[in-house]
């Protein structure tokens, strides 16, 4: 070890020493001692803050609840503790004062928020943190926790990639910060950073799993989650330093409880189907389109390849291909058993679950997942030593078709032949079509095993000093393969199993993390000072081996790579990522009215070249609880809580590949004359460094009428600079891009509002309404020499970085019947990039959710609407030219037929009118292929009935009905407004379940 580190400590060290030597400490005071025991209903309560009002004296109760403090008879002593009502007691006579603390269920400070390295009450937090808890999660019949977050948290926009089980999500916290590096937040599960980048290989998975995103969070059963906190502003994220730029998602799993051993069993079964079908042409309309197309192109006789028209296929057939290929019903089943219990020292939770989901595709495909969750908390009788252990293990298996059939469902002519012939074999109709079910002879399978484990050891060395170490381990394994047996091809081609092939990928990623931490608490003046310091050491290694085999003696041996006559290893990659940091927090809470929170981190990452590895991030947060000021209390009695808070600081982003700074050659696995080829891995740049995100936020939190109405408003302004990107380069450089820091600034700013109203709160009938809305804005502020840079056709200064630059369609020329476009450069030709000048922003304008929870006696109804205003690509986006042999939506019926027609769609062409084909290909890249796609979705509805205790003695029983994506109101004409082009849209689910505890 080199002694390089000392320098980091100069600041905190000198600050600490100065403070230690200059501050008078309480026990040196001359006042007579006051002592006693603080307890609650269960027994002695340690850690209660005890302050002599209007003095600098303060202490905390020890683990036996005992305290001692110097106080005069005239003094008033204040006892406060998170989640309990604060009590002020005049000392009076006597030197012993025992006190019982009362839990405070309604107060905001009863809500304890996980801020990652520390916990804070909702009342005293200075940062911007959103959360959802088990209460919201368990109402939703979803299998990935990210799905449960959709629409419920302001500032957090989540889109599901596909309705295929096991696929991923796009999560954006306060917009897109980075032009090209990752925009994913940091995920931390029970204190352990958890990489959610997919281990899937494009060559294996991309045809069925959108973006090959096999989301590792699938390994968490949402029912095991206690809360999900999302850290948004600088105050909350700076302590995560280089990984906090895009926000931090903290997932906390459930813990055991002190009490009798309790077994809870949940079972849920449901049905799922696609949310919306496209309005496609029927056979009559389709054939009319095709005939018109050939007539337009001057054909008098249909060519041999026009099978749909020339008599090769029956012209009176009609198949609803959407119904046939993606219109099935998927079944979901979920069973979970949880055992909890414990005593004052030890509590535990053990839970096991099984989830199964079939697909909407024809054929026997399914996803199955088993999860185990264990958590144990222990403290020594004197409460000095505390141990907490948690482990989540999941194994899942996903068996899917080799390709998503959504595209075929849209494109197949409605009079395409029958799927099966009279003998029940796949019908190839003499080789005139590709039977869409043939692809089902190939299968995609993945299985993952994942483990997240964490142990936290803490020891209270002295009264004010606590030592803690968190040890975490994660392990992810993925095995996936996709088979292409010869039976996916037309048997007339005479291909045997020598043509069968398989793609395989096995990937493994594991990481360990050690985070020692020390905490110090000290009453200071009329307040409390908390200092936290810690360090992080993390290592993550990943191995990926992607293989291909072909030529099998029999298809039964296709999973035996040893039987392949040709085997190729595409990729065998090993990466090692190391990360180290020290972090700290200084929090001072003066009179419980003025709070200052300083956080910072010194970070180093191996993803950067040796000279650019370290950087510093810091933030300051302040809060003023103005509702505690006398003038507010006296003049605004209806205001029960008011806090103004603000923060400013920085965090960073290191989401780029490993080793980008090295000049390397990689092996290709392909031999030439027995010599395996090696090729330059990339253009290399040893000089790039961190991306910096500076965040500013101001927030107002208020509650009225005894907290019955709560209203929060945030304004934020984040600026990302030193953009770490693969800068696109022209092909003449040999590669598409190079990793470098781009001197550009992206701003994300906007408002977030949330409102909670307890409309009715009687014993029998309760009604709560929650509403949240986010109004995000994104802007490219600076981009030196944009016009000369490689980005000039992607971005415009002053516009969002989520724009697309496209052709602007002027409509169909009534004379020629062909689309016309704005000729921006007036050169008489429509061509890119000069004529792609229309700017369309694809990011949401606003989004949010509205929830109503109604309960009447034992019946509870949750209704949650999600809304979103944004644009989306419609079916013409890089679509098939209308008139060619592919089905279209009924929108094409309003087409041009003869000179003088005013129509929205140009003339049909069979593909032989080059001008029309060209114009349509421009249309596919124009604003005509982008539509408004605002929607309001009944995202979740849950009806829960708790059986009266009198019915089941000693047993709790709840029955419920839940629906997800129940219906969607939208004017979007391209199917589900959230779908990713070419993939299955999110599914509608309806489920019924029962929960029993004894």
């Amino acid at each position, binding site marked *: 070890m080199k002694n390089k580190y000392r320098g980091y400590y100069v600041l905190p060290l000198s600050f*600490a020493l100065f403070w230690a030597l200059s501050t008078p400490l309480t026990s040196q005071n001359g006042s007579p001692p006051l002592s006693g025991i603080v307890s609650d209903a269960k027994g002695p309560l340690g850690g209660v803050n005890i302050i002599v009002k209007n003095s600098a004296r303060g202490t905390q109760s020890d683990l036996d609840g005992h305290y001692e403090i110097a106080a005069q008879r005239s003094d008033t002593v204040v006892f406060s503790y998170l989640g309990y009502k604060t009590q002020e007691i005049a000392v009076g006579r006597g030197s012993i004062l025992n006190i019982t603390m009362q839990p405070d269920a309604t107060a905001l400070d009863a809500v304890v928020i996980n801020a990652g390295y520390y916990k804070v009450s909702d009342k005293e937090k200075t940062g911007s943190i959103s959360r959802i808890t088990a209460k919201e999660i368990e109402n939703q019949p979803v299998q990935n926790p990210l799905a449960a977050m959709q629409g419920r948290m302001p500032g957090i926009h989540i889109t599901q990639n596909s309705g295929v089980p096991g696929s991923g999500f796009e999560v954006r916290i306060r917009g897109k910060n980075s032009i090209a590096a990752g925009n994913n937040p940091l995920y931390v599960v029970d204190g352990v950073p958890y990489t959610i980048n997919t281990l899937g290989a494009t060559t294996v998975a991309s045809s069925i799993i959108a973006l090959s995103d096999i989301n590792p969070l699938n390994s968490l059963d949402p029912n095991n989650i206690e809360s999900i906190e999302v850290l948004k502003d600088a105050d909350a994220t700076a302590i995560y330093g280089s990984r906090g730029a895009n926000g931090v998602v903290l997932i906390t799993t459930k813990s055991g409880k002190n009490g009798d051993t309790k077994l809870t069993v949940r079972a849920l079964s449901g049905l799922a189907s696609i949310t919306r079908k496209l309005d496609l042409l029927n056979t009559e309309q389709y054939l009319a389109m095709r005939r018109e197309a050939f007539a337009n192109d001057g054909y008098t006789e249909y060519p041999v390849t026009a099978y749909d028209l020339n008599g090769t296929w029956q012209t009176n057939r009609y198949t609803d291909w959407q119904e046939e290929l993606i219109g099935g019903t998927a079944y979901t089943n979920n069973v979970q058993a949880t055992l909890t219990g414990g005593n004052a020292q030890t509590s535990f939770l053990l839970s096991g679950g099984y989830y199964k989901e079939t697909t909407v595709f024809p054929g026997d495909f399914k996803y199955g997942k088993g999860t185990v969750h264990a958590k144990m908390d222990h403290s020594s009788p004197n409460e000095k030593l505390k141990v907490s252990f948690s482990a989540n293990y999941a194994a899942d298996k996903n068996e899917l078709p080799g390709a998503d059939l959504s595209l075929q469902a849209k494109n197949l002519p409605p009079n395409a032949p029958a799927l099966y012939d009279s003998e029940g074999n796949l019908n190839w109709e003499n080789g005139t079509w590709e039977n869409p079910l043939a692809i089902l002879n190939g299968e995609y399978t993945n299985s993952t095993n994942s483990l997240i484990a964490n142990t936290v050891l803490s020891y209270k060395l002295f009264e004010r000093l606590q030592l803690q170490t968190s040890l975490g381990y994660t392990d992810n394994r993925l095995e996936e393969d996709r088979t292409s047996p010869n039976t996916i091809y037309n048997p007339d081609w005479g291909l045997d199993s020598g043509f069968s092939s398989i793609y395989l990928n096995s990937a493994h990623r594991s990481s360990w993390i050690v985070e020692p931490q020390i905490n110090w608490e000290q009453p200071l003046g009329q307040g409390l000072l908390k*200092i936290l310091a810690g*360090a992080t050491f993390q290592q993550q290694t990943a191995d990926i081996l992607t293989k291909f085999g072909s030529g099998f003696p029999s298809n039964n041996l296709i999973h035996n790579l040893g039987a392949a*006559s040709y085997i190729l290893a595409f990729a065998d990659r090993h990466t090692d990522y*190391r990360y180290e940091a020290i972090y700290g927090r200084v929090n001072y809470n003066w009179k419980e009215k003025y709070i200052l929170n300083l956080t910072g981190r010194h970070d180093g990452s191996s993803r950067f070249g040796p000279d650019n590895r370290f950087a510093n991030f810091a933030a300051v947060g302040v809060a003023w609880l103005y509702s505690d000021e006398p003038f507010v209390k006296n003049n605004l009695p209806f205001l029960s809580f008011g806090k103004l808070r603000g923060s400013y600081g920085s965090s960073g982003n290191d989401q780029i590949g490993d080793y980008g700074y090295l000049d390397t050659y*990689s092996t290709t696995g*392909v031999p*030439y004359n027995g010599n395996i080829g090696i*090729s330059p891995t990339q253009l290399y740049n040893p000089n790039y460094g961190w991306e910096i995100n500076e965040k500013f936020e101001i927030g107002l939190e208020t509650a009225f009428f005894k907290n019955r109405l709560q209203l929060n408003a945030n304004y934020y302004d984040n600026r990302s600079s030193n953009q770490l990107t693969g800068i696109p380069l022209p092909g003449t450089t040999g590669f598409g891009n190079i990793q470098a820091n781009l001197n550009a600034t992206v701003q994300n700013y906007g408002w977030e509002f949330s409102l909670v109203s307890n409309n009715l709160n009687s014993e029998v009938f309760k009604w709560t309404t929650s509403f949240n809305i986010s109004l995000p804005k994104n802007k490219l502020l600076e981009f030196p020499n944009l016009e000369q840079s*490689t980005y000039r056709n992607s971005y415009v200064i002053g516009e969002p970085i989520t724009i697309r630059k496209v052709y602007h369609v002027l409509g169909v020329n009534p004379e020629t019947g062909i689309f016309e476009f704005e000729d921006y450069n007036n050169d008489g030709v429509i061509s890119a990039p000069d004529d792609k000048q229309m700017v369309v922003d694809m990011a949401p304008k606003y989004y949010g959710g509205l929830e109503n929870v109604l309960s009447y006696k034992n019946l509870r109804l949750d209704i949650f609407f999600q809304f979103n205003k944004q644009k989306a690509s419609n079916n013409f986006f890089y679509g098939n030219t209308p008139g060619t042999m592919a089905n279209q939506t009924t929108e094409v019926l309003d087409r041009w037929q003869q000179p003088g027609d005013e129509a929205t769609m140009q003339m049909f062409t069979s593909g032989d009118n080059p001008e029309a084909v060209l114009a349509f290909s421009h249309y596919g890249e124009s604003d005509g292929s982008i539509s408004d796609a605002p929607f309001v979705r009944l995202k979740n509805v849950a009806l829960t009935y708790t059986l009266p205790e009198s019915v089941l003695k000693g047993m709790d029983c709840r029955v419920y009905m839940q629906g997800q994506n129940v219906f969607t109101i939208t004017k979007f004409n391209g199917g589900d407004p959230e779908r990713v082009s070419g993939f299955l849209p999110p599914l509608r689910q309806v489920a019924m379940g029962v929960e029993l505890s004894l």
Partner: protein
Amino acid sequence: MKRLQLIRNRLLNTPKIQFVGFVILLVLLGGCEDFLEVEFPEDRLTGTVVFNNEATANAALADIYNKLRDNTLLTGTNQGLSVLMGLYSDELDYYGSPGNAAYNFYNHTVIPSNSAVASLWNDSYNVIYSANAIIEGLEKSKELTQEQKEPLLGEALFLRAMVHFHLYTLFGDIPYITTTDYKVNSAVHRMDWDRVYSLLLDDLSNAKNFLPDSYPYGERIRPNRYVAATLLSKVYLYAEEWGKAETESSTILDGSGIYVWEENLDLVFQKESSTAIWQLKPSTAGSNTLEAQSFVVLSLPPSNVALSNGFVGSFEPNDLRREKWIGELSDGIETVYFPNKYKEVDFTGETLEYAVVFRLAELYLIRAEARAQQSSILGAVQDLNKIRSRAGLSGTTADSKEALLDAVLEERKHELFTEQGQRWFDLKRTNSATTVLGPIKPGWKATDILLPIPENELSLNPNLQPQNPGY
């Protein structure tokens, strides 16, 4: 003893002492920067290591041949010249999906965002980058001797010239890239033929100097001096340097002592072909060419491409190539013809066919044309008849310069069909594309003579403006 314990307790309970402890612990938390020193990745090599060893330098070259065979320019797949330019000219009809970029080549609706155009360009420059990295790496290498370096340098220079030559024929003026420096390469300008031509001559004459006469690995799968000379004769032909084209081709035809004329049409595309000058070897034992997989039609209707009826009908009666090199499949109603120079679609116990890039017949036709242009009628007729007699045809009746040039062009059509787009480049360089293709391709425009520069390329490097006319 008890007193000591008391003192200790008092000390430890003193907040100031506790705080000093806190500070000491704080310092102990520290890390050290060595922790971040990750191991060099085991799955790759550094640039300098590659060129300190002959085997790894050879592996870098092997990668280029793999790319040319599998996905770049010379490949027999739908990304290569043989299919794309066959469709673009009058050789092939397209039967595949209209969504495929190849369809636009067939019906002449190529636009600057066409993906096949982008890959022709980008993949070619990627290969050029690799060649430049090899040239620079070898020049810097201190471990390899000059004798070890020279043949490798010769191959890299030849490859750089070969790819640039094809890019010029496709796109017109192009940047000729001779460095790996991305700062230079991202702002390059297009160069006109004079500049490209002189760089081609430089690279090829260096390549000829460095390359040995014999093939490095026995088989004709890595270039020797004559491979570079073949390309040079082709460059002279395109430059209309007739004298030089004749001389250069003669050095191979008359002076090599390696190549032997083969009368049997069945053997021309076999791997042991004695007329092959440069072949690409399949990646694994038992596999054959991608050309066979693209062209051979196994069932009707064809799944990808087939020969156009017009093309098949243009053969003279009794032309053996019509019988030997063209396959046909009929379902009783319709007959489809397909290129059958390569016959092996399946794995065979031992590989039977290699993809031929250069072969002797082309050199005879180059020399015939060069001689005709110089009005050296007798020599031209001799060379042309060499080809014709092997095809079972009588000697040519052409006896004037013009008639001979037409006859050579016609002979090239039937000899070199579906080989790296030779037909298209012949139509282009003889200015006959509009005459030939105009009547049969409804989408044909005179400006189709050049492909468009890829859309992305123009936007990323404005120095490449203007776009080729018509796009």
